[in-house]
C-alpha cells in the first residue's frame, strides 16, 4: 500500500522522467487476485525485462499497462497523463473529500488515522456512498490529468506471443491500417515508411502477401514493424519468441535488440534468460502477483536474494 498524496504523485508523474508509471496496480479475475499491488516507474530508454513463473501475472501486467485488461485498482500513467480510472486510494486529497473521512474525523480520528483506516479497512465500497463532492473531485482530477485510451495505446506498441497479424489484410495493409485510420500519416507516407521498415528486416518481397503464407519468425518481425509504423514511444513485448520454432527465435531477438540499441523504451516479458541478461537495463522477478525482486541483470542473475527467484533460476538455467 503506497501512501503518496496526490500532489506527490502528480509531480512525480509529470516530471516525465518516468515515461510509464504503474501505481499500486491490482487485478483480479473473479476471486483470483492475479496482481496484488505492482508499483514501478519505467524511464525513457529503459529496457525492463519481466521474468517469473508461469501464471505469476507477467502478461497481466503488460495487458493492464495498455488497458487490454481493465485494472481492478491502481493507476497507469503515461508521460504524466493518467490513462485509466482515477484510483482514490492513491490520492489522499480525494479521500479527504469522502463522507467516510468526514465521519471518521468527526468521531475523533486524526487525519492520518482516518486515511489509514480508509485505506486499510477498505471502507470505500462504492462511489456514491461517498457523496457528490467525492465523485466530483474524482471527475475533476480525471479531467485535468487523463488522456484518451486510444491515444495512449497509439503511443505504446504491443507485440504478442501469437503475432496477431490481421489475417484479412496483406502485409502492407497490416502496417498502414492504424497510421492511416488514425490520420497519423497520409496513405503515401504510410506506405513509404512501411516499405522502408520491410526493407530493413529483409521482407520487402512479402509486401503484398497475406499473413497465412509467412513463417512464424517472419510474422513476428512484421508484427514488430507494424507497431513501429505508429512511431510508438514504448514497446511492450509479451513472450515474443515463445510460439516460434527454435531456428526462428534468433531473427526476432536480433530485431528487438536492434530497437533497444536505437534507444527504444521497452518492457519485455520473456523466458529467454540469456536475452534478458543481455538486453535488460533492469530485471523484475514477478512471483504470485508481486514484484519479488528487481535490479540490474547482474544483481538478479548473479546474486539473487529472494528464495523463490533462486529456485526459479535454478530451474530455467538448468
Amino acid at each position: 500500500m503506497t501512501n503518496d498524496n496526490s500532489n506527490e504523485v502528480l509531480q512525480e508523474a509529470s516530471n516525465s522522467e518516468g515515461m510509464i508509471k504503474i501505481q499500486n496496480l491490482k487485478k483480479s479475475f473473479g476471486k483470483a487476485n492475479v496482481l496484488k499491488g505492482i508499483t514501478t516507474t519505467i524511464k525513457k530508454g529503459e529496457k525492463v525485462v519481466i521474468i517469473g513463473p508461469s501464471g505469476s501475472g507477467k502478461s497481466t501486467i503488460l495487458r493492464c499497462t495498455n488497458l487490454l485488461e481493465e485494472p481492478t485498482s491502481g493507476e497507469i500513467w503515461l508521460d504524466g497523463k493518467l490513462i485509466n480510472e482515477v484510483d482514490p486510494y492513491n490520492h489522499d486529497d480525494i479521500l479527504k473529500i469522502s463522507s467516510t473521512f468526514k465521519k471518521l474525523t468527526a468521531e475523533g480520528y486524526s487525519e492520518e488515522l482516518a486515511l489509514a483506516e480508509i485505506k486499510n479497512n477498505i471502507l470505500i465500497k462504492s462511489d456514491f456512498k461517498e457523496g457528490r463532492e467525492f465523485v466530483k473531485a474524482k471527475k475533476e482530477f480525471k479531467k485535468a490529468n487523463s488522456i484518451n485510451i486510444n491515444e495512449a495505446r497509439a503511443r505504446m506498441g504491443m507485440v504478442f506471443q501469437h503475432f496477431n497479424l490481421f489475417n484479412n489484410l496483406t502485409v502492407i495493409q497490416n502496417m498502414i491500417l492504424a497510421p492511416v485510420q488514425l490520420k497519423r500519416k497520409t496513405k503515401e507516407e504510410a506506405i513509404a515508411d512501411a516499405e522502408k521498415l520491410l526493407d530493413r528486416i529483409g521482407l520487402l518481397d512479402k509486401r503484398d502477401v497475406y499473413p497465412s503464407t509467412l513463417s512464424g519468425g517472419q510474422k513476428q518481425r512484421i508484427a514488430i514493424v507494424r507497431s513501429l509504423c505508429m512511431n510508438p514511444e514504448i514497446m511492450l513485448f509479451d513472450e515474443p519468441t515463445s510460439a516460434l520454432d527454435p531456428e526462428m527465435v534468433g531473427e526476432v531477438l536480433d530485431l528487438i535488440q536492434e530497437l533497444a540499441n536505437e534507444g527504444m523504451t521497452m518492457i519485455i516479458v520473456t523466458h529467454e534468460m540469456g536475452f534478458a541478461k543481455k538486453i535488460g537495463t533492469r530485471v523484475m522477478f514477478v512471483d504470485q502477483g508481486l514484484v519479488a525482486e528487481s535490479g540490474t541483470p547482474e544483481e538478479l542473475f548473479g546474486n539473487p536474494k529472494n528464495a523463490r527467484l533462486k529456485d526459479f533460476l535454478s530451474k530455467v538455467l538448468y
Partner: protein
Amino acid sequence: MNAWDIFIRQFIEKEGYTLVLQGLGTTLIIAVAGLAIGLIIGSILAIVKIIPGKNPFLLVLQRFADVYVALFRGTPMVVQLLVVHFVLFPSLGIHILSEIEGTIAFGLNSAAYVCEIMRGGILSIDKGQTEAGRSLGLSYSTTMIKIVIPQAIKNVIPTMGNEFISLVKETSVLSFIAVVDVTKAFQTMANSSYEYVVPYLMLAVVYLVIVLIATFVIRILERRLRASDKR
C-alpha cells in the same frame, strides 16, 4: 392420354408455363429479398448483441434482440406468415400486396437466423485480432469494421448459403396467404387436370435444381474468398 401427355398439354397449350414462370419468379424474388432484409436486420441485431458495455439503452436493445431471436426461432414459419398477414398488417390498418407481406415475414424470420450466424461468426474470430487492433490505438468500431467483421463474413458464407437454401424451400408455404409461388402454380395445374403425379414430381425437381444451383454458386464464392488469402 398418359399422365405425361396431360401435363405437357396443360403446360404448353393451356399456357401453364406462364403460371409456373410467374410462380418461380415470385419464389426467387421473395427468397432473395427476404435474405437481403434478413442480412441487414440480422447483422444489426448481431452487432447489438455483441457490443460490450453497460449503457442502459444498449442493454434494452440487447434484451430486445434476445426476445426477437427467441420469438422467430421458436415458432414455425407458417405461423409467422399467418400472423403477419392476418394479424399484424390488418391491425395496423395497412393493405399491401400479399407478396410484400410474405417478403417481410420471411425477412423478419431470416433476420433471427442471420443474427445467430453472424454472432457465431464474429465470436469465432480469435480475440488476438481485436487485441492487436485495439493495441494499435484503433477504436472498437474501426477494429470491428476493418478486421473482425470481414473475417467473420468470410467464415459465415457457407452457413449463409444454407440459410438461403432453407429460405427458398420454406417459401413453399406462401400459398397460405394466397401468394402464387412456384408450389401454388404446380398445385393449380394439378387441381385443374386431376393429374397429380407429374406436376408434383416436376415441382420437386424445380426446387432441387434451384438448391443445386445455389450450392454451386456458394461453393465458387467460398473458393474465391479462400484463394484470396493465399496469394
